C-alpha cells in the first residue's frame, strides 16, 4: 500500500487530497503517473500534464525514482510560496 497526497490546484481539480493505492511490485514515479491516468477523467487530464512535481517520502524526486510499498508519494504543481 502507498499513500498518495495531492496539493494546491491539483488537489482542487481532483477534488480529493489523498488516495491509498495497493502496490504489489515496486514501480517508478512515471509508471505510477500512468496508472493514475486511468482513475477518472479528472485524473487523466491532470496526470498527463508535464508540469507536475513529485515528492517521495517528503523529498522532491525525478520521474525515474522507484516507489516501494509503505512510501508516501505526493504530487503537486510548481510551488509558489515566499
Amino acid at each position: 500500500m502507498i499513500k498518495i497526497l495531492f496539493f494546491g490546484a491539483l488537489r482542487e481539480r481532483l477534488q480529493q487530497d489523498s488516495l491509498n493505492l495497493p502496490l504489489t511490485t515496486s514501480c517508478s514515479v512515471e509508471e505510477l503517473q500512468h496508472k493514475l491516468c486511468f482513475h477518472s477523467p479528472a485524473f487523466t487530464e491532470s496526470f498527463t500534464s508535464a508540469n507536475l512535481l513529485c515528492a517521495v517520502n517528503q523529498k522532491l524526486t525525478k520521474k525515474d525514482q522507484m516507489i516501494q510499498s509503505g512510501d508516501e508519494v505526493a504530487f503537486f504543481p510548481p510551488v509558489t510560496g515566499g
Partner: protein
Amino acid sequence: MTEKQSAAITVKVQTEDFSQELIYKQLAAIPYCGAIVTFVGLVRDHPELELKALELEHYPGMTEHCLYSIAEEAVQRFSLKAVQIVHRVGYLTPEQQIVVVGVAAGHRSDAFAGAEFIMDYLKTQVPIWKKQHDTSGTLWVEAKTSDQQQYNRWSKC
C-alpha cells in the same frame, strides 16, 4: 574531512503573525556577528487589482524539513552563525507579513548572500502554494520563470 559550521537554526510554519523585531533581537545577540540581514515578504496589493487575500496551502512536515535543509545548506555555504525562518500559511490579507528570513554572519557579503540564497530556494523548492482571492474570484498563483532563474544562479559549478 571538512569541519561543519555549527549555527543556531530556527524554522517555523504557522498561521499566526511573527515579530520581525524579536527575530532581529535574537540574531543580534549572537556572539561575534558583524552583520544581520532580514528579509520580510508581505502580501502585496496592486493599484489595478483589488486583492482581498492570499490563501497559503502547504505540505505539513515536508515544508518544515525543506526549510531546515535550506537553512543548513546556507550555514555551510556562507558561514552563517544563525538562521531564523518563519513562513505563515492560511488566509492573509494585503500588507500582512508572509515570510521572514533572518541571518547573522561575521561579514556582510555572507549575510546578504545567505538570506537571498534561502529566499531563492524557498520560492522554488518548498511545497507551499498561493491562491489569490480578489473581487473577480479565486486564482492559483502561477510559478514564475524569474524565480527559477534566480534559483539556478546558486547551482554549484
